[in-house]
């Protein structure tokens, strides 16, 4: 599955990624509307962005979250009922929510941010499909 | 007698329990090592929700 890989140690916290993400999708430069967020912990940069693990897929009550052909986890905003359980349950804290919008949003590995990253700290990569955390329905209901 | 001993005698098996000795909170990992003396005020409050 395709995802945005990261190397925190290369990050210089220039925030170019946050700017391009929020500007592209929400037409405003606001880190709170960016799918990728650069935090700092004990003086060190921390890149927080969805790794397409898929644990949110089984949480959604309306099955609005699915994996597309490239393996990217996507929210169908038409179906989404805005409960934000995916936000609360994301163990990586990478499912985003902003009060201006009634649906959550997340990184879809579109590659725009890696193109503006000056140090190559973020880049598109592939993970093995076996690392997906959601369970197929046949497996859940087959005892 | 430790807190753990008291809980065994009283058969307090439920996990959501608040234990205070002389108004000081005792955490679960310390039950076995916290000694209770005569005259100590011991409170064991179960938090059971019910239906």
């Amino acid at each position, binding site marked *: 599955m395709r995802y945005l890989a990261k190397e925190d140690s290369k990050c210089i916290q220039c925030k170019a990624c946050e700017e391009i993400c929020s500007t592209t999708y929400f037409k405003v430069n606001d880190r709170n509307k960016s799918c990728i967020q650069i935090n700092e912990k004990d003086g060190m940069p921390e890149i927080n962005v969805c790794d397409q693990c898929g644990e949110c897929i089984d949480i959604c009550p309306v099955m609005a979250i699915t994996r597309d052909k490239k393996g990217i986890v996507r929210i169908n905003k038409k179906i989404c009922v805005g409960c934000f359980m995916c936000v609360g349950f994301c163990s990586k804290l990478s499912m985003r*929510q902003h009060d201006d919008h009634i649906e959550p949003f997340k990184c879809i590995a579109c590659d725009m941010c890696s193109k503006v990253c000056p140090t190559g700290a973020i880049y598109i990569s592939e993970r093995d499909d076996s690392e997906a955390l959601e369970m197929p329905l046949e497996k859940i209901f087959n005892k | 007698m430790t807190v753990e001993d008291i809980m065994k005698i009283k058969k307090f098996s439920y996990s959501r329990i608040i234990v205070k000795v002389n108004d000081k909170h005792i955490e679960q990992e310390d039950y076995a090592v916290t000694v209770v003396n005569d005259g100590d005020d011991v409170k064991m409050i179960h938090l059971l929700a019910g239906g």
Partner: protein
Amino acid sequence: MDIITLKNNHKLLKEYKYELGKIDKGYANRTLYVNVSDNNIMEKPVTQMMKDKFVGGKGFGLWYLWNAVTSETKWNDPENEIVIAGGPVCGITQYAGTGKSLVCSLSPLTDIPIDSNVGGFFGPLLKFSGFDALEIQGKAEKDVIVYIDGNTGVVTIEEAPLEAVDGHVLGEQLTEMYADNEADKRNVAVVTAGTGAEHSRFGLLNFTFYDPRRKVTRLKQAGRGGIGTVFRDKKIKALIVKFSNVKGDLNNPFDQAIINKTGIKYHKEIHDLDSKQNNMRKIGTANIIEVMDAYDLLPVMNYQYGMHPDTQNIKSTVFIEKYITQGVQDGCWYGCSMACAKAADNFELKTGPYKGQKVTVDGPEYENAAGLGSNCAIFDPEGILELNFYCDTYAIDTISFGTATAFAMECYERGIINKEITGGMELNFGNFEAAAELLHQMSRGEGFGVTVGQGINRMKKLFAEKYGADPDFLFDIGMEQKGLEYSEYGSKESLAQQGGYGLTNKGPQHDEAWLIFMDMVNNQIPTFEDKAEALHYFPMFRTWFGLYGLCKLPWNDIVPADNKYTSEPAKVPEHVQNYLDVVYGVTGKKLSVSDMIKESERVYNFQKIFCIRMGKGLRANDRTPYRSMGPVTKEEYESRQERYDSQLKEKVVYDPEGKSTEEKIAVLRKYRENQYELLMDAVYKRRGWNSNAVPKLEHLKYLDMELPELIEVIKDLQ
């Protein structure tokens, strides 16, 4: 039978078109009235007075019911209503447990108002369709459905002769019939009863929601009080509501941001703590089966005992490991991260008309595992699941059925009734086949099952009058009060819980107070004043949820990590603040905790006076069967001899040495019954009532509830 044929056989009796509206800060500001006698359909406005004094949910239900009936109205008169109402918070999607409705009606068991709470999608979709409540009055000539199309603004009453009556079949048929396609199924919600509700007094209502992963219609229940019996008596087969495009802001809240923040905080809490606390997401309320047994509080064999070695066979881990599907998002309305609506899938039925079918069983909740299980000594998880399923589809209250069957079993074991009376059924404790057969008889309307389906109150009369049973003994062991069967907690050793059950408005249901541990195990409420305070605060607090469309479970079934450090952990202050924040976020109304209690007290006292008006609201009606208060029989006394002997020594100052068990039982009984009388005095005083349990006029004034119709009922009872 295919869905097209079913629909083609409908006969339209009335069509009503309405303007679609917008919800304003949680209120649709109108309600829908449907009369199935004359097919009159109309809209009624929600007045400011209704919002100020009744808030919504149960408040609206009781207000409409009061105005529909007289003090002479019986449950099966056409004037009796069924009112379904959510509340101003009902339907938000961000916090857990926000899809509840309360259903109100006059109960066939008690003849006074019953209020019954239920999840599922009907309440929220009804509100989004434009209505804060649905009032149903009258009686149809032939089986009808009422359909509310919230997308186009049309309400119809249609004859529906061919559809099934049983919940699990009818729910599927109507969901399929009214949904545009598979994706639309979750936008259709159905209310059904079942064939059992036609032949018993404790019929329930099923409220469906469509499960997109299982691709089945799930069933939640408005269980208590027999509202399903009223439903079928009115010849209503089902209610259907359809509303597509559910979104998170349909309530048009005052401040969405605070709702979002509080909801996400709560979801995180469930994610982090559920598996360390109660495992609600794995097994729901049944997580306490083994806990109750460990503390000698599980109802066993008609509440004679509190524990049993075979509880090991039905403890929560057995259900989790072998029957209850794990890893599925099981909330009964969107946004419930507590997700306790667990189910057993592909469960093969062993008995009855659906034998051999593999079904989804909604449950078992704790009440089912205890009522259908330990209370009848059926320590068999598959037996419990099968009885659970048939109760749901036949629309029989599992609690009343469990407690009533346990009563019948004890009568059978003691020779009060025999095989001749039961029609050949060996109603011994533990006989699953016999219990199942009782249910099937209720569905078919024949046999001893119909007798059990009349409820304990009427069984006691029948057994005494027709079979010469000792009425005093039956009164002692028949676990009902005001006509309603007790729910599944052993109150025998907790004076506070005896009051928690006995001093309720509707009858012994634990939604008002659940004080057993606080009282018996923690000893936190030792004096009468302490107990009275708890029996004021908790019933008022817990019934507040039913005004707003909220489920009580997210309040205290899981608690924040630092809850134990707060000054009153049993009240879970952070969660209480969550609710105040959510109410503010939706309505713009800033409430304090004492405001909450007062809001609830208004409706509670209204309900109390309603019960007095209907004939069962005074002190004499609050007396309880002795089995709920102490040991009736020799075996019960001797099973807890040490406890009872010490109580005699310490509290009664009576030396048990050398005395017979019968003597000791009598002395203990006199003491305990007197304790209960003293408790009544303390509680009534704290609640602002006189010693006959009548609200005082000055208390109504304090509550700003001096409605002339209320004063009329109580002025001569002061």
